[in-house]
Each structure stands twice: as structure tokens, then as C-alpha cells.
């Protein structure tokens, strides 16, 4: 099975042309089934949504400078944080790394000419746009105020906002996740080039494999729960109404059965990206490659069994609390192993301090903090004290923003020369990376403190004793906003005036670097073949400085 490959298109001069020159009309982009072009479409759309979600939370942070509010009504405030959550989770974070870097890099990484189902791939982007259209409609028709969690009976019976349209948007965008997941699974199973055995897959490919599995298995449950909410709201079907024998907790079980694995949908790809970046900029094989693979699989599997830790105070039985608490501690083990392995990768390495590496180190630090505070929340007594407080808000932002977004930026910078063929300005990129790390910490460390002191989340007005922490946090948000805007400027500049990067500016070993940058439509000029393990950097860290292959020959054990 693993020997199946698609035929490579023969005409050489056509194959040598970059995917960017395959057509310059907008229509040529909107109808392209080329995985690289679809990745670009995704990248542009999620960037737009990232900034919409960012503006929403920017207004919230501004409002929170004063304990009694500045310029919003409570309803407007509730709508802003809700739309921030919906957009950031489903229209930015979930598709972020898989739909952009996964789409662009994964097929090249395993030596395939495209994904297994190119037209399904294009359809997934149109599904995303369809879901996005509903969300934009919600935005312009007054918003939605249920929080991104849609808890009934508030969402089903009491909210006076556009719940059904918002749920429809999320429902539809879920299918784009499923399509991407199915596509990646088929691609990794069927289209690996000769010699690319499972344990020669780069860790990014493994991350994509596990995350696709989670997407395919978990997302349908989200679709069901949103459909049931809409049925109760629109038709009065009393599924979650205890007066008619329904159960309001049923929704929370269904919702978190998706939404906890969704956290891993957001963080596993990030783990994949930083593994590539650490290997490349430490010039060393990732420490404990096999352990890293099994750790990801274990996270994917156990991640399905811990949803109940979101419901310790929801009215769940104490026994269930105990079981979910135990499983939550267990799922933290593989994450901890990964942190140690990334750190271990730096041992006896040749470490560079380029921008992708700074972002990856930022990921490592913040993921460690996010993971450790996860242990606090896995302990039932502490969770009871801190759930629904800013402590939880800070915890999951540390994972999802500090972790995933840092890794997303690491990947963008690492593969930027591959995708565009241009170099970005290293100084500004390093500056932005450091600013982002500092801005993040100034924003969220105060939230940990005030959460533990007792500041509940989703509060428009708050007791004035917490003002100092809110002001600090809002100040950090300004730094963070600047750090997010900077790449927009220097990357655009690089696109227009950047230096040519050459095929492999980092002298990286991945298969995706063994072809021209930007790559031709069929990805490779001749069918690729693999006969070494991944990350075969020189034993002592030096990759070959010259040669267009840029790949060091295997030299015994690189461990």
C-alpha cells in the first residue's frame, strides 16, 4: 500500500514553473485544486479572522480598564467576548496550522505531488468560507451573547441574540475540519514516497496524522450538539429541558467531548511545527523521536477521555470527578515528556537564534507554564476554587495563544522562504518574536493572579480590588497587538521587495526543502525517494554549507 504514488507530470519546462506562476487571475486561485494554493487561500482567510477576533478582544480589554466600564453596555460586552471566542477557536485556531502549513507542507514533506483528494481539499476551503459567511452575518446582525460554549438553557431559550446563525456557522466550518482530516489521513496512508516508512515521517507529519484522527472523530459530536441546540431553540424540542425529562448537562458532556479534544486539535499541530524548528535550528535530530511519536498518539487517545474536567462544578457525580481528575493527570505525562525532549534536543547542539527558533522557544516556555497550570486545574479542589475565573482564562490562553500562536508564527517564518521564495527581515522578525513573548506574559500573568484571588470570567463590571491586574493585562494586550501587527508589515515588505531566498536557506533536511522554492506545481522535479531517518543533520551539528541538495549524508547514529 505504501508504494502507491501518483504519476508525476512529465513535461519538464512546465514542471519547473513555480506554483505561483500557474495563473495570475483571481479565478485561477479560487478554482485551483493545488494544495499549495489552497493553503494560501486558507492563510489569507484565517488572517482576516484573526484580526477581527483580535479587534473584538481589544475592545473588551479597553473596556475592562475601568471596573464600571467605559463605553460598552453589558450586552455589547457579552457579544464581543462571545464573537472573540467563536472566531478565534473555529475560524482561526482550529484551521490555523493544519489548513495552512499542513496543506502546504505535509504533501511535500512525505514526497507526494498533492493531497489524496485535491477537490475535497478545495471544497473544505469553500465550506470554511460558507461558515465564515454566517459568522460575518452574525457580526453585522447584532452578534450573539452565549459565550463560545453555547450552554443551554441560556442559548436555547433565554438568549435574545442570533444563536442559530452562529451555531450554523460553526456547524458548517466543522465540516471543513472533517474534510481536511479525512484528506490528510488518506494522504499520509497512501501517498508517502518510496522509502518513507512510518517511523521516518517527520514529527510534523505525525502531528498532522494524529490531529486528523481527532478532527474526524470529535467534530461530528460538535455538529450534533449544535444541531440539538438549534432544534430546541427553533422547534422547541426539549432535549436539554429538564421539565420535559431532558438534561441540561447532556449538552455540556457532548460539547466538551468535542471541545476538549479540540484543545489538542489546536496544540498537536503546534507541537509538530516546533519539532521541525528545533531540529533545524539546533542542527540535531529531535531527542527521543520515537517517544515523541508515541507521546502524540497517547495525547490524541487519552485526550478523548478527559472532557469531564470541564464539569467538576457542573453537577457531575464526585466519582466522575475523581476519574476525570485522574485521567487529566495522566494526559499531562506525554506533554511533559515532549517538553523535556525539546529541551533535550538543545543538548550538544549547534543552536541558532533565528526568528523561528525564538518563537519556538517562546512556545516551549509558555507551553510549560500552560501545562503546569493544567495540573492545578486537574486537581479537583483547586479547580472548584478557580474554574470560571481568570485563572482558567489565563491557563487556556497560555496553551492556545502562547503555545499555538507562537508555534504558528514559528512555522510561518520557518517555511516563509519555501512558500514565497523570499527572505524576510531577520532583525524585525526577531524583534517581533521577543515582543510577542513579553507582551503575552504581561497580558496573562496578571490574569493568573487575579483569577486565583477570585476574579470570575465573563464579567463586564468587576470589584475594584481587581483593577490593577486588569490595567496591567490591558497594557500587555497593547504590546501583544503591536507584536501581531509587525509581521504583517515586514512579511508584506518581504513579499514585494525581499531578497531571493534560494531553495534551502536554512540548510534543512526535510523533503520539502529538496525542491525549488517556491516549489513547482507538482512539488518535485523528479520522484523523491527516502533512505534515511528524518532530521539527519550532521552528528556534530553542521549541515553542509554548499550544494543545492542541502542535505547531509547520514553519518551513523545521530541520536
Amino acid at each position: 500500500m505504501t508504494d502507491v504514488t501518483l504519476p508525476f507530470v512529465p513535461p519538464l519546462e512546465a514542471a519547473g514553473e513555480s506554483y505561483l506562476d500557474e495563473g495570475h487571475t483571481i479565478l485561477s486561485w479560487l478554482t485551483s485544486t493545488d494544495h499549495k494554493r489552497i493553503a494560501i487561500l486558507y492563510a489569507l482567510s484565517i488572517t482576516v479572522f484573526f484580526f477581527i477576533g483580535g479587534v473584538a478582544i481589544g475592545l473588551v480589554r479597553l473596556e475592562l480598564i475601568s471596573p464600571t466600564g467605559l463605553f460598552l453596555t453589558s450586552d455589547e460586552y457579552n457579544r464581543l467576548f462571545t464573537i472573540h471566542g467563536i472566531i478565534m477557536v473555529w475560524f482561526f485556531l482550529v484551521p490555523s496550522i493544519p489548513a495552512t502549513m499542513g496543506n502546504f507542507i505535509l504533501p511535500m514533506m512525505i514526497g507526494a505531488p498533492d493531497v489524496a483528494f485535491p477537490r475535497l481539499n478545495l471544497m473544505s476551503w469553500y465550506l470554511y468560507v460558507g461558515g465564515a459567511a454566517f459568522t460575518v452575518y452574525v457580526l453585522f446582525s447584532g452578534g450573539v451573547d452565549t459565550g463560545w460554549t453555547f450552554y443551554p438553557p441560556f442559548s436555547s431559550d433565554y438568549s435574545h441574540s442570533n444563536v442559530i446563525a452562529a451555531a450554523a456557522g460553526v456547524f458548517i466550518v466543522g465540516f471543513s475540519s472533517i474534510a481536511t482530516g479525512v484528506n490528510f489521513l488518506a494522504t499520509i496512508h497512501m501517498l508517502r514516497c518510496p522509502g518513507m516508512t512510518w517511523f521516518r515521517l517527520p514529527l510534523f507529519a505525525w502531528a498532522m496524522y494524529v490531529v486528523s484522527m481527532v478532527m474526524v472523530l470529535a467534530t461530528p459530536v460538535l455538529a450534533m450538539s449544535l444541531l440539538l441546540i438549534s432544534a430546541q431553540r427553533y422547534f422547541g424540542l426539549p432535549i436539554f429541558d429538564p421539565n420535559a425529562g431532558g438534561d441540561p448537562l447532556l449538552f455540556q458532556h457532548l460539547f466538551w467531548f468535542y471541545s476538549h479534544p479540540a484543545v489538542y486539535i489546536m496544540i498537536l499541530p503546534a507541537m509538530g511545527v516546533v519539532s521541525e524548528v528545533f531540529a533545524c535550528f539546533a542542527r540535531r535530530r529531535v531527542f527521543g523521536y520515537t517517544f515523541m511519536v508515541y507521546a502524540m498518539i497517547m495525547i490524541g487517545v487519552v485526550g478523548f477521555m478527559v472532557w469531564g474536567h470541564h464539569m467538576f462544578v457542573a453537577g457531575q457525580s464526585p466519582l466522575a470527578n475523581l476519574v476525570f481528575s485522574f485521567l487529566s493527570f495522566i494526559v499531562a505525562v506525554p506533554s511533559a515528556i515532549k517538553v523535556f525532549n525539546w529541551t533535550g534536543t538543545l543538548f550538544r547542539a549547534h543552536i541558532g537564534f533565528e526568528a523561528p527558533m525564538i518563537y519556538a522557544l517562546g512556545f516551549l516556555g509558555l507551553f510549560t507554564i500552560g501545562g503546569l497550570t493544567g495540573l492545578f486545574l486537574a486537581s479537583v479542589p483547586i479547580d472548584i476554587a478557580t474554574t470560571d475565573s481568570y485563572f482558567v482564562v489565563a491557563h487556556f490562553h497560555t496553551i492556545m495563544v502562547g503555545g499555538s500562536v507562537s508555534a504558528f508564527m514559528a512555522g510561518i517564518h520557518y517555511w516563509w522562504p519555501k512558500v514565497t521564495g523570499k527572505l524576510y527581515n531577520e532583525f524585525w522578525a526577531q524583534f517581533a518574536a521577543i515582543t510577542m513573548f513579553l507582551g503575552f506574559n504581561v497580558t496573562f500573568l496578571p490574569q493568573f493572579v487575579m483569577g486565583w484571588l477570585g476574579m470570575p470570567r465573563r464579567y463586564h463590571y468587576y470589584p475594584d480590588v481587581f483593577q490593577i491586574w486588569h490595567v496591567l493585562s490591558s497594557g500587555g494586550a497593547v504590546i501583544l497587538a503591536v507584536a501581531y501587527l509587525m509581521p504583517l508589515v515586514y512579511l508584506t515588505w518581504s513579499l514585494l521587495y525581499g531578497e531571493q531566498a534560494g531553495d534551502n536557506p536554512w540548510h534543512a533536511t526535510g523533503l520539502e526543502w529538496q525542491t525549488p522554492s517556491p516549489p513547482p506545481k507538482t512539488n518535485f522535479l523528479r520522484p523523491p525517494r527516502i533512505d534515511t531517518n528524518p532530521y539527519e543533520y550532521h552528528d556534530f551539528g553542521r549541515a553542509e554549507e554548499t550544494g543545492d541538495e542541502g542535505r547531509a549524508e547520514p553519518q551513523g547514529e545521530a541520536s
Partner: protein
Amino acid sequence: MNISQFTTEASDYAVKVDHLFYLESVISGLVVLLVSGLIVVFFALYYRGSPTPRGLLPERKSREIEIGWTAVTLFSFLFLFWWAASDQLTALAPPKHALEIQVVAKQWMWRFQHPSGAREIDELHVPAHTNVRLAMTSQDVIHDLYLPALRLKQDILPDRYTYEWFNATKTGIFHFTCAEFCGTDHSIMAGSLVIMTPEDYARWTAAQPEGDDLAHQGKALFHSLGCSGCHTPGASVHAPDLRGVYGHVVHLSDGSTRVADEAYLRDCMLLPDSTRVAGFPPIMPNFTRAVNEGQIVELIAYIKSLTTDRQTGAQDQSPRGSP
């Protein structure tokens, strides 16, 4: 407002929670120091171009390292779980005898009813050094009674009962607030928890205008709503005798069994069709429109007081809810 209204450890349980928090903070701090320390050291030693010699690491040794830190991590996590769970377990067993206060939450206010009949809104007076059990329900959406000084939080569901119990050790005025997003004014659905000495509490209760206790108010309702027409021994209509039913197992007409706790008694009034006791005709009317949450609380208090003829059973068969 003062931060001590949130941070004071007003019960022994709160002290335990804080100890666990400090323990995990110290462990986390050490791990962060370890990881960042290693990163700094590796950067200093192995910066690209640095002269440090870089020997090879045999595969076997690196596997030993992997297994080593996996085991260390696993066992420290199991230790933390054990610590946290043992705190939780001791806090779980609800006390046999407790002062039971009824809590009704609704958008966006709190109503409390004391066993003495005293009622209050957005203010909760409780005695210190006494087991206090809050039986809570919501009239609309999901709320959550968050008592920061006691480190307690429990969601409050519509048409269901959840419980929260504590034994406060410090007197004073503390903050409480809603922790589950419930709509427009969620952020101002707050109030004061007043912990008093038992003597002060008794004095406070006596000074409240409501003359009758809950059970007596329930008794009046029981008659005025017509319940007594059927549910009195010797009534001509065939309806279950309610004496001593609270806390006991009942067999339902659909073959299932339920413990007659607050939730069941409430369902009997609001969902009579699905809670019919085996052997009785389906003639119980639906009282959904006839009673409000406060009246249900009073009726249940009355039914619970009807235990004179049989011995008092296990007080609480439904261990739902946090400590």
C-alpha cells in the same frame, strides 16, 4: 471593597485548598526553573560556533534518560493526584446534620430561605462552626454560587437540585457572586456572605419578620392548594401517603425506583406523569403553573417534616454536588 473579602480562608477546607495550591505552585516553579535553566545553559554552551566539544550520545543512554524522566513525571503526577483526591474525598462526605438553607437563583438575583422561615435577597447570613448545607435550584438558566472565601463553587441548574456545604471558621462579611455566565447582568449578580457566631445568627433569625418556619408555610400551602384533599390518610381519593416518604426508595409505575429526595418530590409536582408511584391511578395534576420555586421549597420542607410516624431514614441519598 477589600481583597480580604475574597482571599480570607474562612474554613478549614479553604486552608487545605490553599495548601494544595501552594504545593503545586512550588513544584511548578521548580519545573519552570529547571526547563528555563537548562535552555539557558544549553544556549551558553552550545551556541552555534561555540568551541564546546559535543560528544556523541549513545542510543541506549538516551533511551534510559527517556524512561527515567517519564517515570519521574508519572510518579510525581500520581502523587499530586493522590494529594488532591484525598482532600476532595474528605470534603465530599456531607454531614449528617446540617442547617439547610434553600437557594433559588434567577436572572439576576439570589434568594435564600432559612429553615426558620427567614428570607433574604442577595445577602446570606450563616452561623460559624456549624455545618451549613445549601440546597440550590435555578428558576431560569444555569447559575453558579461562588463563595471565594470558602473556595467553593457549584453550578445551579434549572429544575434540578445541587448542593454545596461548608463549616465556616471565621466570622465576617465576605463576597459571593455568580460564576456561570447567565446573560446581561451576570457580572452584577453578587451579594454578601455574612458569617456570624451561632449566637448572633440565632438573634438575627429571631429578629426576622417572617413568623413561620418553612415547613409551616408549606403546610398552609399544602392545604390551600388542595394537596391535602388526596394526600391525607383516610382521604377518599387513592393517593400516596406522604408521611416518612422523604429519603426512602419509592417504586414507580414504570418499574423503576427512585429515592424520594428533593429532586424527586419536585418532579412529582411538576412532572406527575413520569413519577407516578406504582399502584396509584394517574390523577395527580400538574402544578407547574400553580407554584413558584419558593413555594416548591416550602412544600418540600413540609413533606420532609412529615417523618414522625416512621423512623428517620438516611438524610441524603443523592451525593450530587461538590463538598
